[in-house]
């Protein structure tokens, strides 16, 4: 190499290094002023990364609409701390690594004022440590698996009445209340590989086992499973009285369709998550939903103060009644807004402390949390009757006195 080339490379290299140093210095020094100055007319930005495309996109859409409705209602009532609220939404396609990168970016680069949580235990278990590391209050609407809460995080809060640990309670109580001779004798557990559903499956198997229900099939399937025929066939051969399907989204519908094709209808069918999707009755046939059990955090008929307004307002804005996913998002928004208003400033630690010490009135009732962010309430048991989900447990929230103990066959 000629000396001229060597020299010009050295100059270029030094210049590049100097430029990089300058840029990062600018980035670093910019942090100080933002924390001190409080531009009171600028909107408050709330950051989130949602699985808007990918395998659970159909459930993310009503969840997003729940957030949207919450923000629109909040702004119509004057915003938060006198400022308008904006949502900054990124799409992670249901990929954990993308979700982690998105939230890291929202916090450290975009410097959003607040965070709201993403959907599914699978994503929340990955994102919660990010929020905790940066000390941002993280209220999430849809990750109930125990492993999310097992790390003693101070900034994490779940916006449903109970975590996955208490999910099976109502249904197990129902089986326990049946005379031993009438209880289902055999159980098939089939679930998607997700922290929420696998934990629920273990709990069901264990607690129903104590009531004399024998598990004859227990398998977990990958999230990208498309063909359920062989799984449905294997379950049919095992002849279970009760099938508990830990589904997340479209997989639940695919499994039921495979059951229909294979010609197998269990005496009782309990499905997590999928039945609360608004498109469920259409996907499997409205008459086929009869008798299917599921769990819910929220009931449209509940008489909590903010609930009737929520149902009416949401129906008006979107032309259809809200679903469980929309309600969960709205609840998360309620929790965050109440805490911010109570604290009076955008101080993440103060917000987290306040939530640990106080209860929040929401559309699912009063919510309070323990030191690790676990809510202290109970879930509802629902059953499809006449094409709609009715609450059948607990009695205080029940919208139907009847319970179908035997599911009719497929039509």
């Amino acid at each position, binding site marked *: 190499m000629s000396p001229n080339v060597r020299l010009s490379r050295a100059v270029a290299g030094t210049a590049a290094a100097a430029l990089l140093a300058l840029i990062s210095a600018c980035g670093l020094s910019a942090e100080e002023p933002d924390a001190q100055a409080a531009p009171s007319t600028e909107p408050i930005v709330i950051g989130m990364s949602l699985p808007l495309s990918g395998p659970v996109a159909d459930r993310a859409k009503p969840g997003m609409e729940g957030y949207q409705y919450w923000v629109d209602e909040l702004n119509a009532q004057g915003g938060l701390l006198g400022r308008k609220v904006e949502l900054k939404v990124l799409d992670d*396609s249901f990929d954990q690594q993308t979700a982690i990168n998105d939230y890291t970016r929202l916090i450290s680069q975009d410097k959003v004022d607040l965070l709201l949580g993403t959907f599914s235990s699978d994503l929340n278990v990955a994102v919660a440590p990010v929020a905790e590391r940066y000390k941002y209050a993280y209220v999430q609407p849809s990750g109930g698996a125990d492993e999310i809460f097992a790390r003693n995080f101070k900034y994490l809060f779940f916006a449903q009445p109970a975590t996955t640990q208490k999910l099976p309670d109502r249904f197990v109580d129902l089986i326990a209340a049946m005379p031993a001779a009438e209880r289902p004798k055999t159980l098939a557990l089939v679930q998607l590989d997700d922290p929420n559903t696998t934990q629920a499956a273990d709990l069901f198997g264990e607690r129903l086992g104590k009531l004399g229900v024998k598990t004859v099939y227990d398998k977990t399937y990958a999230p990208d499973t498309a063909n359920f025929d*062989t799984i449905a066939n294997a379950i049919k051969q095992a002849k279970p009285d009760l099938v508990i399907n830990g589904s997340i989204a479209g997989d639940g519908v695919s499994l039921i369709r495979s059951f229909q094709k294979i010609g197998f209808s269990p005496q009782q069918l309990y499905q997590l998550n999928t039945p609360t999707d608004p498109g469920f009755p259409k996907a499997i046939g409205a008459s086929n939903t009869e008798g299917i059990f599921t769990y819910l955090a929220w009931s449209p008929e509940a008489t909590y103060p903010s609930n009737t307004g929520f149902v009416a307002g949401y129906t008006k804005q979107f032309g259809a009644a809200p679903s469980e996913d929309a309600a969960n998002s709205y609840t998360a928004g309620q929790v965050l807004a109440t805490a911010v208003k109570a604290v009076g400033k955008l101080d993440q630690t103060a917000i987290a402390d306040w939530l640990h010490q106080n209860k929040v009135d929401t559309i699912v009732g009063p919510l309070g949390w323990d030191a690790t962010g676990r809510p202290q309430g109970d879930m509802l048991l629902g059953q499809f009757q006449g094409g709609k989900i009715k609450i059948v447990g607990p009695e205080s929230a029940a919208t139907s006195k009847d319970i179908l103990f035997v599911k009719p066959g497929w039509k």
Partner: protein
Amino acid sequence: MTLLVQTVILGLLVGGVYALMSSGFSLVFGVMRIINLAHGAMIVLAAFLTWWVWDRTGLDPLLIGVLVTPVMYGVGWLLYKTVVARVHKADHELAMVATFGVAIAAGGVMSLIWGTEVRSATPGYFNTSIELGSLVIPRAQLYAFVGALAILGALYALLRGTFLGRAIRASSTNRDSAALVGVDVERTMAQMFAIGAATTGFGGAALSVIYQFVPDSHYVWIGRILCVVILGGLGSLLGAALGAAILGLGEALTASYIDTRWATAVPYVLIIAILLIRPQGILGGRLRTDGVHP
């Protein structure tokens, strides 16, 4: 015993669906040496078009698939003329990258047009089966299986029996010589590619009935299609049928007897296995490395 027989039946039927999806790809791959990674996206596009027409008119989706076929022929022709022909001249492998880009873009466009909700067409027979004693044969899969046989047969007849078929084989063996004997090579290549794309019409219709799909589903399908083609061997339609049967059986048997979680890894395990044992595929002939490249 019933479990085994039923599992084998389900596996073969699913294999039929895979054969249907892969036939066009195998042809284009084997005869033209073009790896069209947008094939999965075309199947999903055909599925959306089928679903869209079914949703509005209620016509049988598989019949709609027949109507969608010429539309997909046009899409294939367009894709060839605008993207593949240009990059294929520059570098053979570039067609793979370019079509992958088209696939990603197509996924995005489909999301914009039809949204990201899960879709599927549900004609009367979508969840019914023919019963033979204690065995069941799901109808939708059976119809797709029959369709696969018909399409594979038609493609085979095309390649062996028609002038176009001979022109295609000539062009892919030796471009320049084919041109010398009067074959319009460019036009022939475009037609072949378009025919490969046309098979996705019925394949997409079958997809819409048998499975649920979203715009991003093409990632799932291209993986399986590649497995089928690599297993069966380059340029062999019978190989594609065989590869599809093996894959379908492999997935079904793994799900029933090993573990459901491993079922989705089967295509990739099979690809690795066949590349280690017999890289040219089960029915693939060895590639000539001497002589003129097409």
